[in-house]
Every structure is written in structure tokens, then in C-alpha cells.
């Protein structure tokens, strides 16, 4: 980019000034206040914008007297061509307009394009240098010169070094590896502290398990102590109780002992009382019994005096009966006589009947003969049957005679009929003859059939023969032709000596011959002829048979046979009649036979009855019934007789009995012997009366006695009862005497007393808390008081211990609760996490700075390694040129920024060690080297504001020579030193007059 023209509308002191036709190396010369700086500022202002009001470091050059602010610059851009940039007063940096030669118009954007986004500071740091820039070097601290140079050389500003410084500062305030103050260090330390607390809390958390365990142990221990306290309290209570009941227990023991000594006493309840009562009852009874016994003895004595004859009185009924029977005795005498007469009459009757029957049996046997109703019935039946049989016999005999006569007549008739019949032989021959006569007709029919058949077969035979002949002829012709061919073949074969053909021909001929002969035979004709012959033979046989039969007179024969048949029929009916009659006759005979059987049976019965009735057979056979009746009669007579006998006997016995009875009584009780019957009876009767009176008196005494005795018995019974009770009482006490009984009674009373006492004692003890076993145990303990004291002390001791444990437990419980609920750990943890986050955030901030620093240094490092060497070699070249080879090499600081300069004697200098002029030379060299190396693409004009005042003439010449070599960039050189003008072409110098710009060409 080249600046061709300037048109200042108003800028600082300059107003409405036009400068045209600027050269590639344009020198602006003017004295102080001529407006050189204003023009420089104008150029910067138009291209990069007016300084804003905030940019206090730079002047705004707003005209004091004119309203116009700004102007325009005409440039030529190597890429875009010519353009006019106009900037006038407007918003902050002014309103800009760009008019391109190609007609394009635009504002700030277009301008940026043209200026490749350079801003003023960058432009100034590379392409524009003034005296201040160089002088600043002087003012800078020695070490920073190099840095400044480096930063100016890379970014064109001091930003780099400033940035590095800022970063370092920020980093330092945040963190130092071994610091304490910086933020991160502080935070780390704080976090560390919190972490320690956390660890402690965590450890406490771990203690938790131990605490819980401890708590459980404590609880267990407390339980145990509580248990033992309880036990001891119980013991104390027992001891106190013991104190209360000791005397009672002892008394109880004593009573018990006494009781034991008394031992088991078995004594009836209220024994004494009871025995006394008994005794009181028993004594009166004794007296009464004695008196009664005496009276009874008296009465017994009295009774013995008037004892009646007991045995006599006992026989009184018998005696009385006898006495009554005395008048009966006479009556019996008469009855006896009557019976004897009756008996004699019966004897008579019996003998009569006996005679009638002529029975030779005695009376006893008659009773054994069975004459009961069944027998009577049988007897009647048998005699009736006998009668009937006799009648039947007669009738049967009559029938027999009749039947016999009829039979004999019939037999005679049959014999007659048999004589009229033909013999068997005659009849057979007749029958044969008739039969043959019938056969002839059937034979004739058969012969006719045979003849028809023969005729049929003959016709068939003839027809077959004709056809066979025809076929035979045709075949012969065929065979002949074939034979001839074969012969020809044979001949041909033999002619050509083809033996095979010849042989074939011969074989053919032979075969043809065979076939011909076989074909002429006719078998069928022969078969038919044979059949015809057979049929003819059969016909002949039949004809013979027909002729052999004699022709007789069949009709007569048939008549003979008919009459014979009739006779035979008659004969047969006669035979039947005979048979019939015979059966009648047989029946009669059978009936006779049956009768005989029955007659025999009846007889047998009869005999058996008669034998049973002990009758002779002859009487039985005809007078059985009468005999039987007689028998019955005799039997009843005998029975009557027997009865009379027994009655007689009875009467005799009665008489005997009466006499005997009286005799015995009189013998026993009467003093007088040998008295008659009636006297005896009288005497006995008197005696009886006497004894009766005696008996009545005795009975009176006896009843009285029995009364007394009953009384005595009763009394004695009661006495016995009492006595037994008394005994029982005595025995129940297991003693022998009453004395002992009383002693025992006293003992029992004592025991009862003791038991009562015992009960009262026990009732007192019943509600005591001490069991019997415990009481026994305490009985053995003697120093119960001391024991009580001891126990109380023990309780106090344990209670103290328990209290300690409880306190301990409470504190541990509290600690557990604190751990569980209080959440010290949690609180610290939350706090820790928050602080940690804060730390991390701070660390991140630090990290950003640290990364920026690292990135920056890395970039610088890289920059050093790539871009700087090129720039530095250029700078070296320029420096060497400017210093005439005195300083040839520029080195980069190995760490950080800054340069080292090497003189041609290889001495190394830091920037601040160089002379002022050399430093400025270095500065120029580096600046120019930058412009042509790093920024070689940007062909901005290089603006130099009187920068070489410290140079001597030689150095000035050198630097100007160098500048003239920068042909790629326009050079705008502002100076106030006239002596310098001699170094330039005249046309290149523009003179600025003080007060008003004037172009001096």
C-alpha cells in the first residue's frame, strides 16, 4: 500500500491542506511545530480510526477553531488498486468512507479489508517507529529491554510480555509450590485441616462398633449387678422376716417334737364320755336280767308238774278216726257176703262160653287176646272179602268157558283158508312172467334211439372226408414247390462246391418229406367210425334181448295173481279175528289168575287173624265173626269176676285195719289189757278228754313263760349291744382295761391340745415369705444380725457400682446417639465436600492461568524455533550492515523472551549492555527485519519519526542506505534536522513551513 495523496479537512492545527504526489521514499522536513506529528497522526487516524475519547493516551487532534475534523487519503493498494479513504467526525472513531477506483464503495469493513485487519497499535509496532520508541528502551529496566524487543518483534506490542507478567502475577497470587499465602495454598491447607477432622470423625465412626459393644457389655454387667442386688435384697428381707418369726418357728419346732414324742395315739373320739355313758346304761340291764331269770326258773318248775301226755295227744286225730270207724265194721261184714255170691254166678257164665268156643286157654290168656276195634274191623273185613271172593270165582269160571269155545271155532276157519292159498314158488314165477312183458316196450324205444344216432354219425363222417381230401391236395402242391426249390439249392450248392448250401438243401428236402407224410393222416374220421360201430353193437344186443323174451298169455296170469291176492286178504282178516279173540281169552285167564292171588292173600290174612285170636283154623275159616263175639263176651265176664275179687279183698283189709288200730292204742295207753273192741274205744275216749284238760293248763303256764323269756331275750340283746359297744370302744383304743382306756384318753387330750397349738403356730407362719426349707436353713444360722448388716453393706456397694455403670452407660449411649444422630462426621463431610469443590474451582481458575501461561510459552517456544530464526538472520544482516560487521549475531534467550547480541569478537551482550546507539541500531534492524520477514505480506508504508538523532554521520548514512534498500515499502521519513536532507534526493523532500504547510519542491 502506498499513500499517494493527503487531503486534510481539519486535523489539529492543519486545515484544508492537500499534499499530492508522494514518492516511494518521501521525506517530510519541517521545524518543530511545523505539523510533522500531526500529519503522522492524521495518516494513522484516517486509516485506523480517530482515537476515542477514552483513549486518553493519544491526542485526538480535533481542530480548535474549525468544525471540520478529518480528511481523506488516496492510496494505491498492490492488490486492490487505487482508493480514496475519507474519514470525518462521527461516532467514536469517526465515519469512514472508502471509494475504490473500480467503483466499489464501502465503510469500515472495506477499509479493514484493505488494511488486512491491522490495528493501529500493531501497525505502529511494526511499521512505524519514533524517537519515543527508541527512548523507551532507555527508560526500560535493563532486563526488560530484551523482552520488549521480543514482544515488539513478535506481536508488535508489549502485550506479550505484559501478558506473561500478568499471568505470572495471577499464578503467583493463586499458588506457589512452597508458599503459604497464595489462595490455593491456603485452601489446600484448610482442606487438609478439615480432612484431619474428618478422619477423626471417621475414626469415631469406627469407634461406634466398639461403643456399641461396650454398651452391650455394660448393659449385661448392669443386669448382672441388678440381679445380685435383687438377690441380696431378697436375703435381707428374708432375714428380717426371720427375725419376726424366729420365736414362733422355735415354738413350732418344740411342739412338733413333743408331738413326735407322744407318737401316734389312737383313741376314739370322745372316748371317755362315751364309755361313761355306756357304763351307766349297762348296770340297770344287768339287774333286770337277773330278776327275769329267776322268775322264769320258777315258772318252769311249776310247768313240769302238770305235763300232759304229749304223744297221746299227738295221736288224737288218728284215734278219733279209729273211734268213728268202729260202727263201720259191721257194715263191711255184710258187703263181704254179697260179693262172694255174685262171684259164684259169674264163674258159671264163663264156663259156658268157654265150652261154646272150645277154647283151650286159661282165663289169663283170654285177656292177652287182642279184641280191640281194629281187630274187630279186620275180622269183619276178612270175612266179608271171603264172601265176595267166592262170588267172583263163580262168575270168572263161567266167562272162561265162553271165550274158550269162540277161540276154537276161529282156529278151525283159519286152517281152512290156508289150504286154498298158492304156494310161494308158484306166485314168484307168475310175477316174473308179468314183469318181462312190461320190459319189451322200453327196449324197442332204445333201439330206435340208437338207430337215429348211427345215422347222424355216418353223415358227419362223410362230410369230414370230403374237406380233408381237399386240404390234402393243396398242401401237397405247396410242399412239392418248396421241395423243388430246395433241390435246386442243393444242386446249386454242390455245383459251386458250396457244401454248406448243399447240406442245407438236403436237410430242407428231408424236412419237407417228413411234413408231407405227416400231413396226409386223418384221425378224426377214424374216431367217428369207432363210435358208429359201438352203437351198432349195442343195437344188436338189444334186438337179441327182445327176441329172447317168450311171448306168453299175460292176461291169464294176471287173473290168477288177482284171485290169489283176494284169498290172501281173507286169510289176513281171519288171522286178525283170532288174534282179537285170543286177547279176550287171555284177559279172562288173567282175571282168574288175579282172583287166585287175592284168594290166597285173603286166606293168609285169615290165618294170621285166627292165629292171633288163638282160634283153631277150622272155626276161623267159617265162623270167625261169631267166634270173635264169644271171645269178647268171655272176656267181659272174666273182668267182672276179677273186680269182685278185689272188692272182697278190700273189705277184709278195712276190717283188719280198724281192729289193729284200736288194739295198738289200748296196748299203749290203757292199763287194762284184753278188753273188747268197744270197751277199748270207750276207755280211750275218756282218756282223751282227761289229757285235753291237762293240756290247757300247761299251755297257760307255757305262754306266760314264753312272755318272760321274750322279755329276757330282749333285755339280754340290749345288754349285749351295749357290751359290744363297750368292747369296741376299748378295742378301738387298743387297750385291754378300762383303766388303760382312761389313761390313753388323757394322752389323747394332751395331743389334741398340742395339735391345736401347732395349728395356730402354723397359721401364723403360713403367710411368712420364708419357706419351710428356708426356715430350717435359718435355724442353723446363728448370727443373723451380723449377716443382715453385712448384706446391707454389700447392697450399698453394689448400688454404688451400678450407679457408676449407669453413668458410663448413659455417656456411651449419648456418644452413640451423637454418632448416629448428631452427624459430626456427616457435617464435616458435607463441609469437606463443599470446601473441596471450592478448592477445585480455585484450582481450575489457577489451571486456566497456568494453561494460558504454558500455551503462551509453548507458542513462544515454537515461534522462536520457526519464525524467529528467519527474522533474526535478516536482523543480523541489517545489524551487521549498520555496524559495519561489528555485531553480527543475535541470539534468543534460552528461557523467556529477550535477545543476546554477539559482537564479532564473540563477546555476548545482553540488550541493556549495549551502547545507546547500538541498541537503537539493534532496534532498527529488528524492526526492519520484522517488516520484511514476518510481515512481508503486508506492504504498509514505513513511517519513521526522527529516530536517528543519536546516530553519528556514518551511522546515519548507513541507516539511510539501509532504508533505501527497503524498496517493497513506501518510506515516510519525518525529520527536523536539516543536515539530514543532504542524504536525500531533492525531489523527495517536502518542506513544511511553520504555521502553514507548504510544499517546497
Amino acid at each position, binding site marked *: 500500500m502506498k499513500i499517494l495523496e493527503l487531503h486534510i479537512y481539519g486535523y489539529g492545527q492543519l486545515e484544508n491542506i492537500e499534499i499530492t504526489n508522494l514518492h516511494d521514499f518521501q521525506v517530510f522536513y519541517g521545524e518543530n511545530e511545523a505539523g510533522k506529528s500531526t500529519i503522522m497522526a492524521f495518516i494513522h487516524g484516517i486509516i485506523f480510526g480517530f482515537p476515542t475519547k477514552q483513549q486518553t493516551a493519544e491526542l485526538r487532534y480535533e481542530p480548535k477553531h474549525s468544525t471540520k475534523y478529518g480528511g481523506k487519503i488516496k492510496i494505491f493498494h498492490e492488490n486492490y488498486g487505487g482508493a480514496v479513504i475519507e474519514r470525518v467526525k462521527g461516532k467514536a472513531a469517526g465515519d469512514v468512507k472508502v471509494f475504490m477506483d473500480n467503483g466499489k464503495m464501502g465503510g469500515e469493513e472495506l477499509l479493514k479489508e484493505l488494511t488486512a485487519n491491522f490495528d493501529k497499535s*500493531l501497525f505502529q509496532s511494526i511499521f512505524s517507529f519514533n524517537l519515543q520508541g527508541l527512548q523507551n528502551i532507555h527508560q526500560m529496566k535493563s532486563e526488560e529491554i530484551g523482552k520488549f524487543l521480543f514482544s515488539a518483534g513478535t506481536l508488535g506490542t508489549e502485550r506479550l510480555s505484559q501478558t506473561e507478567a500478568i499471568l505470572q502475577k495471577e499464578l503467583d497470587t493463586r499458588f506457589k509450590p512452597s508458599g503459604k499465602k497464595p489462595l490455593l495454598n491456603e485452601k489446600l491447607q484448610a482442606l487438609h485441616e478439615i480432612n484431619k477432622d474428618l478422619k477423626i470423625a471417621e475414626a469415631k465412626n469406627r469407634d461406634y462398633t466398639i461403643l456399641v459393644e461396650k454398651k452391650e457389655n455394660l448393659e449385661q454387667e448392669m443386669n448382672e449387678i441388678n440381679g445380685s442386688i435383687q438377690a441380696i435384697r431378697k436375703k435381707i428381707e428374708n432375714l428380717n422376716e426371720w427375725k419376726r418369726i424366729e420365736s414362733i418357728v422355735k415354738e413350732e419346732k418344740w411342739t412338733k417334737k413333743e408331738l413326735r414324742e407322744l407318737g401316734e395315739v389312737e383313741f376314739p373320739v370322745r372316748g371317755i364320755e362315751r364309755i361313761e355313758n355306756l357304763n351307766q346304761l349297762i348296770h340297770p340291764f344287768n339287774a333286770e336280767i337277773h330278776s327275769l331269770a329267776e322268775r322264769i326258773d320258777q315258772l318252769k318248775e311249776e310247768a313240769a308238774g302238770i305235763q300232759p301226755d304229749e304223744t297221746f295227744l299227738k295221736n288224737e286225730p288218728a284215734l278219733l278216726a279209729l273211734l268213728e270207724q268202729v260202727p263201720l265194721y259191721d257194715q263191711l261184714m255184710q258187703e263181704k257176703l254179697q260179693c262172694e255170691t255174685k262171684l259164684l254166678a259169674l264163674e258159671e257164665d264163663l264156663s259156658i262160653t268157654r265150652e261154646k268156643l272150645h277154647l283151650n286157654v286159661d282165663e289169663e290168656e283170654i285177656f292177652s287176646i287182642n279184641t280191640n276195634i281194629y281187630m274187630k274191623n279186620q275180622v269183619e273185613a276178612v270175612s266179608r272179602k271171603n264172601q265176595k271172593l267166592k262170588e267172583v270165582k263163580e262168575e270168572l269160571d263161567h266167562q272162561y268157558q265162553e271165550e274158550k269155545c269162540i277161540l276154537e271155532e276161529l282156529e278151525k276157519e283159519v286152517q281152512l283158508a290156508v289150504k286154498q292159498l298158492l304156494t310161494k314158488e308158484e306166485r314168484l314165477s307168475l310175477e316174473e312172467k308179468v314183469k318181462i312183458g312190461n320190459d319189451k316196450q322200453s327196449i324197442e324205444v332204445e333201439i330206435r334211439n340208437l338207430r337215429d344216432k348211427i345215422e347222424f354219425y355216418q353223415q358227419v363222417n362223410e362230410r369230414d372226408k370230403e374237406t380233408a381230401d381237399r386240404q390234402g391236395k393243396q398242401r401237397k402242391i405247396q410242399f412239392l414247390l418248396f421241395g423243388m426249390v430246395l433241390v435246386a439249392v442243393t444242386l446249386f450248392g454242390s455245383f459251386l462246391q458250396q457244401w454248406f448250401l448243399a447240406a442245407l438243401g438236403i436237410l430242407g428236402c428231408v424236412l419237407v418229406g417228413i411234413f408231407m407224410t405227416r400231413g396226409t393222416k386223418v384221425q378224426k374220421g377214424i374216431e367217428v367210425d369207432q363210435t358208429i360201430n359201438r352203437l351198432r353193437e349195442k343195437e344188436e344186443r338189444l334186438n337179441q334181448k327182445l327176441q329172447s323174451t317168450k311171448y306168453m298169455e299175460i292176461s291169464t296170469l294176471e287173473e290168477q295173481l288177482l284171485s290169489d291176492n283176494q284169498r290172501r286178504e281173507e286169510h289176513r282178516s281171519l288171522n286178525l279175528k283170532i288174534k282179537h279173540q285170543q286177547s279176550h281169552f287171555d284177559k279172562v285167564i288173567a282175571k282168574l289168575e288175579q282172583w287166585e292171588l287175592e284168594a290166597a292173600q285173603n286166606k293168609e290174612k285169615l290165618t294170621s287173624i285166627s292165629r292171633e285170636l288163638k282160634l283153631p283154623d277150622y272155626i276161623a275159616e267159617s265162623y270167625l265173626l261169631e267166634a270173635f263175639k264169644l271171645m269178647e263176651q268171655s272176656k267181659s265176664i272174666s273182668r267182672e269176676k276179677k273186680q269182685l275179687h278185689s272188692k272182697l279183698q278190700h273189705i277184709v283189709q278195712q276190717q283188719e285195719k280198724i281192729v289193729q288200730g284200736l288194739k295198738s292204742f289200748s296196748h299203749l295207753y290203757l292199763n287194762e289189757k284184753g278188753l273188747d273192741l268197744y270197751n277199748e274205744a270207750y276207755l280211750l275216749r275218756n282218756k282223751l278228754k282227761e289229757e285235753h284238760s291237762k293240756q290247757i293248763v300247761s299251755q297257760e303256764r307255757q305262754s306266760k313263760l314264753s312272755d318272760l323269756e321274750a322279755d329276757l331275750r330282749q333285755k339280754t340283746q340290749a345288754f349285749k349291744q351295749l357290751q359290744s359297744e363297750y368292747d369296741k370302744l376299748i378295742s378301738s383304743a387298743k387297750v385291754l382295761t378300762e383303766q388303760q382306756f382312761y389313761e390313753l384318753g388323757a394322752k389323747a387330750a394332751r395331743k389334741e391340745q398340742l395339735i391345736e397349738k401347732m395349728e395356730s403356730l402354723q397359721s401364723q407362719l403360713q403367710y411368712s415369705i420364708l419357706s419351710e426349707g428356708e426356715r430350717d436353713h435359718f435355724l442353723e444360722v446363728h448370727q443373723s444380725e451380723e449377716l443382715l448388716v453385712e448384706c446391707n453393706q454389700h447392697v450399698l456397694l453394689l448400688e454404688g457400682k451400678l450407679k457408676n455403670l449407669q453413668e458410663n452407660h448413659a455417656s456411651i449411649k449419648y456418644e452413640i446417639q451423637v454418632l448416629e444422630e448428631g452427624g459430626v462426621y456427616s457435617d464435616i*463431610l458435607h463441609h469437606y465436600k463443599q470446601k*473441596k469443590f471450592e478448592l477445585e474451582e480455585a*484450582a481450575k481458575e489457577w489451571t486456566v492461568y497456568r*494453561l494460558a501461561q504454558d500455551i*503462551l510459552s509453548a507458542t513462544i517456544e515454537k515461534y522462536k524455533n520457526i519464525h524467529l530464526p528467519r527474522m533474526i538472520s535478516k536482523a543480523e544482516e541489517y545489524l551487521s550492515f549498520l555496524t559495519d560487521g561489528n555485531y553480527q549475531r543475535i541470539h534468543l534467550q534460552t528461557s523467556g523472551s529477550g535477545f543476546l547480541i554477539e559482537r564479532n569478537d564473540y563477546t555476548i551482550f545482553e540488550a541493556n549492555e549495549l551502547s545507546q546507539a547500538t541498541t537503537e541500531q539493534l532496534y532498527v534492524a529488528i524492526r526492519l527485519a520484522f517488516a520484511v520477514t*514476518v510481515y512481508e505480506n503486508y506492504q504498509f508504508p514505513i513511517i519513521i519519526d526522527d529516530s536517528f538523532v543519536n546516530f553519528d554521520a556514518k551511522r546515519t548514512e548507513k541507516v539511510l542506505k539501509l532504508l533505501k534498500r527497503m524498496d517493497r515499502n513506501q518510506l515516510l521519513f519525518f525529520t527536523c534536522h536539516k543536515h539530514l536532507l543532504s542524504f536525500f534526493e531533492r525531489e523527495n523532500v517536502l518542506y513544511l513551513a511553520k504555521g502553514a504547510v507548504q510544499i517546497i519542491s
Partner: protein
Amino acid sequence: MKKISFIHAADLHLDSPMVGLKHLPQNIFSRVKESTFTAIKKVTAAAIQHQVDFVILAGDLFDGEDRSLRAQSRFRTEMLKLAEKEIPVYVVHGNHDHLNGSWVHLDMPSNVHVFTSEVETKVLHTQNGVSIHLYGFSYPTQHVYDRKIVDYQKKDGADFHIGILHGNESTGVEHDNYAPFSVNELQKKEFDYWALGHIHKRAVLSETPPIVYPGNIQGRHKKETGRKGIYHVTLTELDYKMDFLETADIIWEEIVVDASSANNFLEVLQLCQTTINNARREQTGTLLSLFLKNLDLEDARVQRSVKGELLEILLEDEKGEDSFVWVVDLTITEGQQIDKEILKKDANFYAELFETIDHYDDVDHALSSLYNHPLGRKYIEHLPIEEQKELVMKAEKLLIELLYQS
């Protein structure tokens, strides 16, 4: 109709400190510290209020190394409340509260049924005479990468079958792949409900049957945003009903606000306050990550004061508030972003700088001075890659600011 109802909760992380908080006032800090307990109290209260048949806690009841006695004690207190109402609780332990930990164990009441380290079946008969089989296992150690799902075998003889599983759905890669499973696998088991745990974000993986992550009951850092709670599930033979019940006492939120319209500090402040008031929930605390985007203030001093004082002013109002909205993180991004490409053209150095940043991978080395510090090594954890990148970006921004901007 047979019917059961229960509470499904997971990832209680009781008494686990919240991450990402600094300089909290005492009252809010107390709320924060109590938040997990407040949440579990709400869980038990819900169980009692709804008279559920049982409660499922699907793992991570406690927070691993930070399992405090208080956490267990409070938990026990809550379980005793349920025991009083005879509500059984079925617990599996997850990777954070695995069975192999060295922490102190408090005994739990008898209504708390803890599954052992192998998959087992627990049988429950409710008071209504419904029988339920619950299947589950507890982590024996922290790292369980086996496919434990294979061991879940349906056992006949119950009206309902419920699987309890603390694990990661295999396709999800954001979390540790513990006890991995696929939805398909779970569906094949033909259970009536799958009570999952491990993932802190609420998710219903399947409707038939319900396969559910209820999420944790209380958000614990700024990534766990939004409503947190439990499911109250009602199962019948035919269908099911799931009610989400909020339990978190404090909710983490993240709000991005476009601040391009604000021209001065007051407007920015008002914008922020409006945002905060909109985010406020009754009786619930909110921890807010606020992003102010496209802030474009001409005046650099105003911009500085926004960065410096805005947060303080915003927080000042919330200190005494019960339903507080506490801005835990205020990120401001400016509207005008420096064009790196332009910068590169400006000066080669920038090109080099960006080049360096693009290939910058030696963060640890740069930070070694802090990490090698005896305390730094102990308390400052190495940064994850994403965060490293983020910080590098911040460093870049810082450098640009320092180098470029006046």
C-alpha cells in the same frame, strides 16, 4: 380382582454430600445437608399415606465411602416408621453400597428384607391375600459386570412377579456398565414389573411390562436436574398405574438466558431476577446453573461489574428464602466472539498460538506443580478430558483477552 400397590424408589444416596457448591449460607447449607433425609422421609410418608403393600428400594441406598452412621440411623428411623405400619421393605444393594464395604453396619428392623449376593426369590403375602414373588440380588462388591439378568428365573406360584435389578441398560454408555441387561431380556422374563436402579435419570424403558428407572430421590449435582422422586405403582391382573411422586427438597436446574436484549447492568439484573423468580418452586429449594448468553454491553466497565457483582446481588436476595433459588454457577458469554481466523491474519503469532492450542495435550505436565504439591496431590483430582478441554478453551480466551484486547 387381585391388586397390589407399592413404592418403587432407587439411588437414595443418603447423606451423600452434594457436589459443586461453594460459599453457601448456613440455612441453605443445612437444607442441602438434610436434603437426602428430607427425601427419604417423603418416601416413607408417601408409603404410609397411600397404604402401599410394600416398598422397593432398588440399590444405592448409601453412598459408598461416605456412608455415615447418621445416614444409616436416619434410614433405620424411617424403616421403623414403616415397620409400625407393617409395610415390608425390599432392598437390594448396588455398586455404591455393596455388601463388601468396610463401613459400620447398623441393624435394620425386621420388615427390611435385604437380598443376598445371589439372585433369590422372596415371597410376600399381602394382607389382602395376594402373593408376590420378588426377585433380586445385592452387589457383593462394587464392580459387577456379569450379566446377572440370566439368573433371574420366574418361579410359579404367585399372583405377581416383580424383578428388582440395579444395573445398566446395555445400550447406555454414559454410566458404568454394571449388571448389564437389555430391555428385550427383561421382557422375556414375563414379570409384571421391573424395578430398576442405578441410573439417576428417570426413565420408563418399556410399558408392557413396566420397566422403570425411577431416578434418584434427590439430585446431587448440577447434572442431575429437574424433578426427582419415586413411583407409586398399582398393579392389577389387567393393567397398571404409575404415579410419579416428587421427593426432592432441592432441585437442580440449568437455565440458558439470551441476554442480547439487555443494554445495561440493571436490565441484566432484571433479566436474571425474572428468570430466577420463574424458576422458583414453592417449598422447594432450587440450585440453579445460569447461563447468560450473548451478553453485549458496550461499556467494558459495566461488563466487568456484571461479571463481578451480578452474582453477589442475585444471591443476596436468596439468603433468607425458604423457597430459594440459589445460583450456583453463573456463566456469561459475550455476543462478540473474537474471530480466530482474523486474529491469525492479524499476526502470525496468533496462528501459532491457535495451532499450539489445537495440539495442546500436555495439561498434566503444565499442572504438575500443583499436582506434585503434597497437598495438591492429595486433594485435587486429575481432570477428566472434557474438563481439560474446557479449561484449555478458557485459557485460550484468557490469552486472547490479554494479548489482543486493550
